[in-house]
Every structure is written in structure tokens, then in C-alpha cells.
């Protein structure tokens, strides 16, 4: 006979105001196999947990049901508590009478109490048949791959390498640095980008823990967190790299000018994009058409951005800042020149950022005009801009020598394909999706694959560096464990029943199933199994099972309530 303990929580008034906890305890005490039942204000509190531990010792309990909130909330808490009292943690289950009972039946005390009793009944039956399980320990390959050698990828690689772990950095081009290599200088202090970058590139190339693969592309990812096998395609042919974690840092591509026909994009030589103007600032500021130094320059912000009808709906985040930078640098080079900026609104969030834009206005007399430009065309050797100033409410016309379009940042053109290869999600534009927008901003939904840089969303260099360092910290955190600890409540196969039909292989959404290469059975890779149960349903032979969700358990649970 089992000796189960049942511990009913009031959750303050969350449960007790609706469910008659005293009655649940009484009823539970009478259930077959239950040796002890009680209730308490907050089971998860220290006194609540020690109450459970004491009861295990005093009453010689061999199983525990905590009747409280969702297991997502506190299963781990209570399993640790019973383990401390010497019980196998998998002999402890939670019966959820909060989310699934008191919260949804607030005005039905009688019915809610009866339902709570039934929920307890089922979980008591389950615990009686729970096996003692041991968490799985899987080895970790302590070597990382970084995809993309821009500032994001280099920063992530350096951080991981400095922590003592080898890194293989995969770059599609024949050089490192990404787009930053094309910038003139950077805000806020006008520090020359090439100088900043050269130092980083040197550190990467000279680091004994970093191996760089140039002209390389990732074409396949197999395995799971801690044990990936990545296929990299190179001119010499494919090679396979064994790594434990992957950081994706593939950055961005500029918005094609041709997609802005109303701005003369791709047609008027003196209409250029921001990246081209960065290069002009480095090489001498001659306009493309005739090599003259422009005396009047118009900057058009949000070109392609914030335009769901014609371009992309998002804000590219860095252009307000780099336009102010470029306008100031232009004025430094051409003191008699005039810079104009058309904007919808100025987004300069960040320490010292708004002051920087104000400086452009006040110290460099850059004229900001509020309104999105509607049309740009040629008149003689000049470029005419039609905009408006919504502040005075007038349509404007401006003749300039050069127009700079602050075009949208698009995710790397290969991002969507790469996301598929790496089994990670991306949004409609191709920016990789983070696991949680607030609390897990550098993880993808695939364990062991992390995100850094503009590939995840538009951001500037300081933000990119911060995110890359965070992604590296996640990798280091993973590598610092002595093994991957995994819940043992995963699927397994009863070999004698399995006919190797492969039904489970086809339905498993996580690729955890395979037919054994030699023997006529299906196998489960426990590291990949997410306990979804699809294989259990699919198997015609009842050979596919999940530990502690055995058919006998489920049937016994059903039996006591129907």
C-alpha cells in the first residue's frame, strides 16, 4: 500500500476564497493510499516546504501531491523540497486547483470544491504509479560556432574565446568587419570606424582559440544543444564542425535604391544611400555625376522605413542618429555648405543621443524640416526635392546638389534560408525571432542557438556589441555546466512491441525519432524529445511511451473520476 501525502495550499485567498480547502483535506485523507493530508496558507513558503519535509519523515511518505498552482509555476520548487527529505523528486506531482479550478469558478464554491477533490483524486492515482527517475546527463561539446563576422560576430567570438573555449567563425565574404568596414566614423564622438575595426579584426585573427572560415556558408545543422553537427560549405567542399552552441550574427543588407522610384533611386546619380555617403565622407565628398563638392545636401530620413504601403513598416532605428552625424561631418568638410534633413520624427533615444542631434541643429545649423519627402527629380544639374514643413503647414521645394536617402536596414538576404537551416524562427521580414521579447532577448527558440546584432533587429554598434556579449555569456554559461541536465520524463520505446513501422518518426515535430540503423526498432533521442506525446498517439502497437505518463497511470486517473 502506498503512503501518499497530500498538501493543499490556500495560495493566500487565491484558492481558499473559492475552494473549501479544509474539506478537500478531509476528503483526501480518506482516499485509498493516502497516509496524510493537510492544508496551509502558502505551501511554497519556507514554512510550507518544511511542513512537507517533516511530514515525509514523520509519516514515512513514499509519494507527495502538492495541491496548488500550475506545475509551470512551482513543480521544480516542490520536487527539490521532497528530494531534500530523501524522496525521489519524480514521486512528487502537483494537482493544479488554482488556474484550472479556483480562478475559473470564482462564484461556484460547491462545484469548485468538488472539482478540486476530483483533481486530487487523479493525481493521487498517478503518484502511486510514478517511477523513481533520474535526470539525464548528456555530454557537452565545449566549442562554439559563430555565423557572420561583422562587429556582432567578432565580439561574440572574442568573448567566448577569451573565456577559454574554441570558436569557429563562419564568414561568407573574404574579409571580416561587415558593414562597419564601410563606415566613415561613428557617433557620438566621431571616432574613425576603420581604426576601431582594425583592432578587433586583428584580435580575432590572432586569437589562438578562434578559427575563421572565409567564403563559407552554413548549409545544415543536426543534433541538439551541446551536441550539434554543422555542415559548412566552402570552395574546397563541405566540412562538418562539431559544436555545442551556435551564435547567429548575419547582420543586414541595405534597402535597394531601385525600390524608391519616387525618390529617383537608381535613376538619379546624385541620389545616394547612407552607406554610399559614408564612403564619400571617407574618400573626398565628390558627387557621383560630375565630381563637384556639393554645396547643398538634403538628407531624407525614413526612406523605405515606416512605410507599410511601399517599404517596410518598422523603424530602422539608427538612421536618425547617423544622419545627424553625417550632416555634421559634411559641415566640417564644407564649412560654407548647407545640410537639410527631412524627418517624420527624430528618434534619438540613448545616452547623449538627443544632445547629439540638438548639436547638429544649433552648432552646425543643420535645418530640420518636418515632413516625409514625396518626390525627387532632376532639374538641370541639380536635384529638386518636394517635401513639406508640417510645422508651418506649407509644401516646400528645395534644390540641392546631392540627396542622401537614409534607407531602411533589411535583414541579411540569406537570413530566411539560414533560419530554416538552423531551425530557428524569423519574422515576416527575416529578422530572427528571440525566445522572449523581454526576458530572453538573445536566445532563439531552439536551445543552444543564440542571436546577436542586426540579424535580430535594427540596432547600432553599442547595442550590437552589448547583445553579442550577452549571447557569448549564454554560450559560456552553457559550457560551464559539467553536463546537460535533462528531464527524464521523455518518450521511450518498448522494443518488443515495436514493429519499426516509422509512424512515430513521421509525427515527431522535434526530429527526436529515428529507425535504428541495424535493429528493427524505433529509437528516441532524449535530448530532442519535448514530451509532446505525438508519437504515443501515433504508434499502432502501444510501443511508444513516456516515462511517468504510462497507460496504466492515465487509465487509473480516468477511472477514479468517471
Amino acid at each position: 500500500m502506498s503512503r501518499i501525502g497530500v498538501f493543499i495550499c490556500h495560495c493566500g485567498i487565491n484558492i481558499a476564497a473559492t475552494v473549501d480547502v479544509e474539506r478537500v483535506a478531509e476528503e483526501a485523507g480518506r482516499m485509498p493510499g493516502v497516509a496524510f493530508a493537510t492544508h496551509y496558507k502558502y505551501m511554497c513558503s519556507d514554512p510550507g516546504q518544511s511542513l512537507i519535509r517533516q511530514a515525509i519523515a514523520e509519516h514515512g511518505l513514499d509519494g507527495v501531491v502538492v495541491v496548488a498552482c500550475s506545475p509551470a509555476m512551482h513543480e521544480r520548487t516542490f520536487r527539490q523540497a521532497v528530494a531534500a527529505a530523501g524522496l525521489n523528486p519524480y514521486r512528487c506531482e502537483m494537482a493544479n486547483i488554482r488556474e484550472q479550478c479556483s480562478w475559473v469558478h470564482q462564484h461556484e464554491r460547491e462545484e469548485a470544491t468538488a472539482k478540486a477533490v476530483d483533481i486530487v483524486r487523479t493525481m493521487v492515482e498517478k503518484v502511486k504509479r510514478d517511477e523513481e527517475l533520474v535526470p539525464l546527463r548528456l555530454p557537452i561539446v565545449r566549442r562554439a560556432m559563430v555565423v557572420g563576422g561583422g562587429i556582432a560576430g567578432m565580439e561574440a567570438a572574442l568573448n567566448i574565446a577569451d573565456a577559454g573555449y574554441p570558436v569557429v567563425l563562419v564568414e561568407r565574404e573574404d574579409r571580416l568587419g561587415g558593414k562597419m568596414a564601410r563606415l566613415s566614423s561613428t557617433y557620438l564622438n566621431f571616432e574613425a570606424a576603420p581604426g576601431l575595426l582594425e583592432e578587433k579584426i586583428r584580435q580575432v585573427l590572432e586569437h589562438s582559440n578562434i578559427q575563421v572560415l572565409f567564403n563559407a556558408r552554413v548549409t545544415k545543422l543536426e543534433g541538439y544543444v551541446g551536441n550539434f553537427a554543422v555542415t559548412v560549405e566552402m570552395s574546397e567542399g563541405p566540412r562538418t564542425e562539431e559544436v555545442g552552441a551556435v551564435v547567429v550574427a548575419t547582420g543586414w543588407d541595405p534597402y535597394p535604391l531601385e525600390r524608391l522610384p519616387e525618390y529617383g533611386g537608381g535613376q538619379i546619380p546624385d541620389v545616394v544611400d547612407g552607406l554610399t555617403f559614408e564612403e564619400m565622407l571617407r574618400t573626398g565628398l565628390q558627387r557621383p555625376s560630375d565630381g563637384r563638392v556639393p554645396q547643398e545636401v538634403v538628407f531624407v530620413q525614413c526612406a523605405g522605413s515606416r512605410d507599410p504601403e511601399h517599404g517596410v513598416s518598422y523603424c530602422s532605428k539608427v538612421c536618425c542618429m547617423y544622419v545627424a552625424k553625417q550632416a555634421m561631418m559634411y559641415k566640417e568638410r564644407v564649412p560654407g555648405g548647407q545640410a537639410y534633413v527631412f524627418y517624420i520624427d527624430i528618434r534619438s533615444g540613448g545616452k547623449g543621443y538627443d544632445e547629439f542631434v540638438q548639436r547638429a541643429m544649433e552648432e552646425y545649423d543643420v535645418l530640420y524640416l518636418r515632413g516625409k519627402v514625396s518626390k525627387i527629380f532632376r532639374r538641370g544639374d541639380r536635384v529638386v526635392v518636394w517635401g513639406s514643413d508640417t510645422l508651418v503647414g506649407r509644401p516646400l521645394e528645395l534644390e540641392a546638389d546631392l540627396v542622401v536617402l537614409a534607407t531602411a536596414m533589411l535583414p541579411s538576404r540569406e537570413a530566411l534560408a539560414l533560419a530554416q537551416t538552423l531551425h530557428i524562427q524569423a519574422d515576416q521580414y527575416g529578422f530572427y525571432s528571440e525566445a522572449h521579447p523581454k526576458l530572453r532577448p538573445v536566445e532563439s527558440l531552439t536551445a543552444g542557438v543564440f542571436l546577436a546584432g542586426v540579424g535580430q533587429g535594427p540596432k547600432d554598434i553599442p547595442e550590437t556589441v552589448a547583445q553579442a556579449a550577452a549571447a557569448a555569456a549564454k554560450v559560456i554559461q552553457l559550457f560551464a555546466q559539467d553536463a546537460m541536465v535533462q528531464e527524464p520524463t521523455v518518450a521511450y520505446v518498448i522494443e518488443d512491441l515495436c514493429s519499426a513501422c516509422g509512424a512515430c518518426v513521421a509525427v515527431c515535430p522535434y526530429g527526436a525519432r529515428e529507425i535504428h540503423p541495424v535493429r528493427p526498432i524505433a529509437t528516441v533521442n532524449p535530448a530532442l524529445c519535448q514530451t509532446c506525446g505525438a508519437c504515443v498517439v501515433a504508434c499502432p502497437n502501444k510501443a511508444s511511451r513516456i516515462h511517468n505518463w504510462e497507460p496504466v497511470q492515465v487509465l487509473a486517473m480516468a477511472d477514479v473520476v468517471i
Partner: protein
Amino acid sequence: MRTTISVAKLRSQFVRDVEEISGEDLLACNQCGKCSAGCPVAAAMDMLPSQVIRMAQLGMTEVLQSRTIWICASCLTCVARCPKGVDLPRLMEALREISLRSGASEIDLDRLPPDLVRELPQLAIVGGFRKYIK
């Protein structure tokens, strides 16, 4: 008609005069609109106070035709509130001055109704001389 914007207009004599007479840096104003939001007589104006400074920034001499520069009571509410320390009534004064120097007086003393003159406080009449008469 489209308003043209050009270096010639931005750096015109008009803009220089406004800055010199008022002693204000026009581009210090970032067009937040707070002056217009708090001006007690804005409802009676044909153009918001912030639009007056905007037109001056753009070198638009049409601003001299605005009634706003005459309606401004120099109450200094906007000065107290402006986040950028712009003294708007000084700018209004500069615009009135430029307007008076180049044109006619805003009020004709002879045509003021005698009843009104009798009732007006002396201070108002003296103030009016300063503000509206060439």
C-alpha cells in the same frame, strides 16, 4: 504655391536682422510647441507663436503679415516655459520693429474713438505708442 527653401533665404538679411534685433538664436527652437500650448491669447492669433518662429527660421518674410506678432501681449508665459530658453516676445518685438520700419504704423491715433481714449489707462496708451507706432 510651394515655398522654396534655399541657403539664400536661410542666411538672408531678414534672418540676420531678426537675430540681431531680438538677440535670439532662432535655431535654438526645436519646435516643441509648448509656447503655443500655453499662450493665453493663442486662440485669437492667426498663426501659432511656434509657427512664427518657424517661419523666421525658414527666412519666410510672409511672417510679417501675421496678426500674431501684434496680438502677442508680451506676457512672458512662453519665456517662462520654453524648454530651450527661447525668448519669444523678443522675437515678436523684432518682427514688429522690422515691420514698422518698413511700413506704416499699426494704429492711427487720430482714428481711435474718443470714448475709448477716455477710458483707456494711460499706461496702455503709452505702451501702445511703443508697440504699434512707427
